[in-house]
């Protein structure tokens, strides 16, 4: 399975960046059927990229803040630590060797 390798799924992912949407709203902007959108959403959900919630009778989909956001947080922290160590070394007065 290639969660973001499919152009339709990338388009859906892109739409959800601006906020929650229903299947119907997503399908309205795409040249695919609602069942097809639902199928793509299932793949995105399984990949941990998208979550759903109920709003009255509607199901709304949005990006999962714990998905790639979590990965991003790890990487940010990784480089924050590495760059702090780098800065210290780069600014250390060069000692006679």
């Amino acid at each position: 399975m290639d969660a973001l390798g499919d152009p339709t799924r990338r388009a859906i992912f892109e739409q959800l960046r601006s906020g929650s949407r229903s299947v119907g709203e997503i399908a309205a902007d795409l040249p695919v059927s609602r069942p097809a959108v639902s199928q793509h959403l299932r793949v995105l959900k399984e990949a941990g990229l998208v979550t759903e919630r109920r709003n009255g009778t509607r199901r709304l989909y949005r990006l999962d803040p714990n998905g790639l956001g979590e990965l991003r947080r790890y990487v940010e922290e990784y480089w924050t630590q590495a760059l702090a160590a780098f800065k210290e070394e780069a600014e250390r007065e060069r000692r006679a060797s």
Partner: protein
Amino acid sequence: MSTQAQDLTVRKSVVVACAPEHAFETFTARIYDWWPFASHSLSRQPESATFEPRVGGRVYEVGPDGKEHEWATVLAWEPPTRFVVDWHVSEGQPSTELEVRFLPEGDGTRVELEHRGWERYGDEAAEARAGYESGWDVVLAPFVNATD
């Protein structure tokens, strides 16, 4: 690059009080002197770490057991301005791309780091979740290798 890939790109920048040449050399040739190996390496206490200064060059550590672990290969090499590497420190995981730029700023240097290509990890997370229900932790364990 598509927009969502842009969105997942990690960007960091730090200003250091030295010339770009010195910053570039410290970051690359002298990586062994500053890299936080205890938390950011595969063998934790490597014997050496090498940044081969040319396109196609390798970035790797040599563990206490003499085993080499490759971190990256150099895609662009333009001292003292920038370098780009294909970053594949986690074996079996998709590779990502790391670019570091060294820009003069006042008497110092702004070091801008961009780590991109994380959308490739979407699939890995899905597999990890299906198997272990712990998602990113499993995917990232070999990459982050956090201290206990």
